[in-house]
């Protein structure tokens, strides 16, 4: 039997020792470290909360799109049935249009007589005053404010069309809100990522100050930089990971808290709306990401310490 462990075993054991060391350091002052981890968790939870809200708004947007934005074309009253048929054919041939629904003046009149309290008024006219209407549903890709507006402007120009109507204010607004929200979340995320890195770096830095001597000794007796770095990197990762778990819990509690009022609100619109929590995949990504932030901050700090000039006494 050789005196030393095989290379891989040594590497493996030293990682195990580094993890144990990192964990012991964390447990040495549990209260202070718990506070640090909470601060990291809250810092991650803020942009994460916005992100989840945004995700929910986007699903809301797509559910409400079943009553998708349509364009109504009110036809001129003097056109013939042949003209109407050829118009419908032209429109159906248009690639941007998914569906064309024709409501003839007679159908329109029937609906009006059935639903309106002013049905009698129609009898005052000698001729059916209700124009033929074409309801245009754009294809899915074109159901956004810009494309739908282009289509609307084109259809408005048709010679047989009297009035074209498009009610899309709510679409525009929702899209605007979401795109502003996306920008805010992006900016906040960058800001808070820096925040998390700084928090972890600061914590490690102040606790490292008491280990300077140890690092010095390790270097003088022949420890490699990687060997010295390892326990600290694990500590950074541990901080990040625990912070990530706390933010995950915080956001799910937050979503559970606002679910009842949101359901009530949705009910008044006769819809059911379930807020989404963080999915398992998102949560896993979150933890990987927060651990990575911890790793980066630990790396920055330990490199700084390792680059300090060596002392012999």
């Amino acid at each position, binding site marked *: *039997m*050789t*005196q*030393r*462990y095989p*290379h891989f*075993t*040594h590497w493996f*054991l*030293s990682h195990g*020792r580094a993890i144990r060391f990192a964990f012991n350091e964390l447990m040495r002052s549990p209260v202070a470290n718990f506070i640090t981890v909470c601060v990291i968790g809250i810092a991650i939870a803020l942009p994460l909360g916005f992100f989840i809200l945004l995700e929910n708004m986007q699903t809301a947007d797509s559910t409400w799109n079943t009553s998708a934005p349509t364009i109504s074309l009110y036809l001129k009253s003097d056109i013939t049935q042949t003209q109407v048929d050829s118009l419908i054919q032209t429109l159906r041939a248009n690639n941007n249009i998914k569906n064309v629904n024709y409501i003839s003046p007679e159908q329109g009149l029937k609906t009006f007589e059935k639903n309106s309290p002013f049905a009698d008024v129609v009898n005052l006219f000698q001729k059916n005053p209700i124009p033929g209407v074409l309801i245009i549903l754009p294809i899915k890709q074109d159901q956004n404010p810009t494309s739908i507006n282009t289509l609307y402007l084109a259809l408005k120009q048709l010679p047989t069309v009297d009035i074209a109507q498009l009610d899309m204010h709510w679409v525009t607004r929702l899209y605007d809100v979401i795109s502003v929200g996306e920008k805010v979340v992006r900016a906040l995320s960058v800001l808070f990522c820096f925040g998390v890195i700084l928090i972890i770096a600061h914590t490690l830095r102040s606790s490292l100050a008491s280990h300077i*001597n*140890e690092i*010095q*000794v*390790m*270097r*003088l*007796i*022949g*420890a*490699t*930089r990687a*060997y010295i770095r390892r326990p600290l990197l694990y500590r950074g990762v541990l901080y990040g990971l625990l912070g990530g778990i706390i933010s995950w819990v915080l956001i799910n509690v937050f979503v559970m808290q606002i679910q009842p009022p949101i359901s009530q609100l949705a009910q008044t619109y006769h819809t059911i709306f379930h807020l989404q929590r963080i999915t398992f995949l998102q949560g896993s990504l979150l933890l990987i990401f927060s651990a990575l932030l911890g790793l980066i901050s630990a790396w920055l700090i330990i490199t700084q310490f390792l680059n300090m000039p*060596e002392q*012999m*006494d």
Partner: protein
Amino acid sequence: MIEFQNVAKNYPGHTALINATFSMASGDMAFLTGHSGAGKSTILKLAMGIEKPTHGKIHINQQDLSQLKKRHIPQLRSRIGMIYQNPQLLENQTVFNNVALPLLIQGYRHQEIKRRVQAALDKVGLLSKEKLSPNSLSCGEQQRIGIARAVVNKPSILLADEPTGNLDPDLSMDILRLFEAFHLVGVTVLIATHDLPLIAQMPYRMIILQNGEVKK
């Protein structure tokens, strides 16, 4: 083997070594002396790769230090045992763990570490204190723990920087006898000290530094 050829070392603002040339064959023992600030510590720092020389060549065991890459410095140090005036022990670790540190870093097997640490502690006469904290030991004992840590890896070279600086004459002589014992089993030993009355009692070569040069 230690060899310095025309080595100069400048620090910003002052010159520590102007032209130092000396060599020690394997298994030699010598004292490096000179008044404070003559460059004794600089020589040891250069030999350990803590500093790089401004000019000149340094060979440690046939290895040219100027060719040594930064990432190979840990390897160099693991083959040199270094003892400091202040023994540089980790206070939150036991005596055993302090001495075991170089072996742990090198990936020695658990049983081998135990065997070697106990042998080293036995050699310096402190085997009974292995479970104590270094804080509970006297200065002389701490220095001997430092020596045990330096020799536990069986280095071919031992360097010491004022190892008796904090000790009274009797204890100092004990420490020097300990170094002599390692010299007698073939280790190259270089001890930097300004304690001339002490080393006058021993029959070893003196390398005297004066104004940044080795006095012939």
